[in-house]
């Protein structure tokens, strides 16, 4: 619930919602205006009446992508942070060396713990396709 609130109701997200609430009806009005002008015989307006809905759809797409953009593990700061994590060994890195299974540990419990650790490094679930993490360690 906290993740949902952070994603959809942060100041950044709310300003995105407000911008989209103004811009998309604006595009719709402009498109309707151009369609009416085209119907009145302005031939150039046929081309512009395609342009305005395209702007509206594009803004909707970028609104969705920006709401689902996480700055944690990509971008300049993200890469620097990931590199600091990879060199410090204090934090788990996705795909990095897993802690070895100790002898007295139940293999089922070890697999469960490994799964939990893997989930913890993946971060919250989003609707956006996950990009591969930049810092990788080869086996």
């Amino acid at each position, binding site marked *: 619930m906290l993740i949902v609130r952070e994603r959809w109701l942060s100041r*950044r997200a709310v*300003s*995105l919602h407000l911008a989209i609430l103004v811009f998309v009806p604006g595009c719709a009005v402009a498109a309707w205006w151009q369609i009416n002008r085209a119907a009145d015989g302005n031939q*150039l307006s046929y*081309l*512009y009446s395609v*342009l305005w809905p*395209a*702007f509206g759809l*594009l803004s909707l797409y*970028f609104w969705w*992508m*920006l709401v689902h*953009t996480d*700055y944690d593990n*990509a*971008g*300049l*700061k*993200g*890469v*620097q942070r*990931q*590199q600091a994590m*990879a*060199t410090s060994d204090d934090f788990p890195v996705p795909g*990095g*060396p897993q*802690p*070895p299974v100790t002898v007295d540990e139940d293999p089922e419990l070890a697999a469960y713990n490994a799964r939990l650790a893997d989930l913890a490094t993946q971060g919250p679930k989003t609707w956006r396709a996950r990009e591969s993490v*930049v*810092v*990788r*360690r*080869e*086996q």
Partner: protein
Amino acid sequence: MKRLTQRGLEGALFRYQLMANIVGVLIIPLFLFTGLHIAKVGSFKLELAIFGVGHGYLYIVYLIAAGFLALKARLHIPWILLMFVAGLVPGLTFLVEWIIVTRKIQPLIAAQNAAAATETSGVSPAAQ
């Protein structure tokens, strides 16, 4: 041609730079003919139609290229707005493209290369 369809940050950067230059060149005659038309130097209806519609449709391609670069490089919203507005102002396109590339994208590529370099040479996974 290969760079046009290349995946990843380099490809997105190339597509953005290509579209920024095309749109930045196209908007100059558009503003020029608009000014001449308003100043009643002559009637430039055909030129205005060609450059207006051409810039309008190519501006959509520019928005897509710039937006995908911004999403890939995780630029923040003010930078994205600056990139989008730059395609509408003559001359600003080239300036913003230069600022974005030198201030934002090249440091990111350098950081990614540094990360890749330490990954292959420096720290080796000891617990294997």
